[in-house]
């Protein structure tokens, strides 16, 4: 398995507060992705990165921003959390292939 970790694993926060989720991979993968999983929606891509400082939007990017200053780290920020952002967030990484390796997930609850 690819070495990919996420922190925190669980977080409860209040509406309007900023939240940052961290993804760390030790495989030197070029590509990294953030997804959210919600009942009835499967996995939806939020943002992705194709290199250090190179990022782009996915299908559900509104309200989220990302940063990648090092190959191994990919941060997802909710500038002002809303209840609709309560979800399970997964990070994934991959080299130049279609197989992505997923982290264990972060369960975020916005109250």
């Amino acid at each position, binding site marked *: *398995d690819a070495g*990919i970790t996420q922190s925190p694993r669980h977080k409860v926060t209040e509406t309007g507060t900023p939240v940052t989720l961290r993804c760390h991979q030790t495989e030197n993968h070029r*590509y990294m*992705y953030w*997804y959210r999983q919600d009942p*009835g*929606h*499967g*996995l*939806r*891509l939020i943002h*992705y990165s*194709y290199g250090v400082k190179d990022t*782009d939007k*996915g299908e559900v990017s509104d309200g989220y921003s990302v940063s990648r200053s090092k190959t191994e780290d990919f941060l997802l920020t909710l500038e002002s959390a809303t209840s609709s952002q309560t979800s399970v967030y*997964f990070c*994934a990484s*991959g080299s*130049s*292939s*279609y*197989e*992505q*390796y*997923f*982290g*264990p*997930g972060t369960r975020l609850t916005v109250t």
Partner: protein
Amino acid sequence: DQQVKQNSPSLSVQEGRISILNCDYTNSMFDYFLWYKKYPAEGPTFLISISSIKDKNEDGRFTVFLNKSAKHLSLHIVPSQPGDSAVYFCAASWSGGSNYKLTFGKGTLLTVNP
């Protein structure tokens, strides 16, 4: 507009029998397809994939079939085991500069009964 569809939210089979999970796609640009397996409280794990130049790929108990004309793929698990009980996601991508982005279906919960 959902480009990858898994129309069966759940499937229940007996141990030892065949499990068939189905997936349809609408985007004709997709040319690579994957299946992921997910246990509760864990991240998805890659299971098997197929390129559009093939119509079948086999790996042990798992076989994926691709019917391009019907824009349909299926995952066969034979024989099914209780440890196969999980959510299975179908995913698709296209080689035209997509940065290997995947589009996922909503998933099918497979339950294998002993």
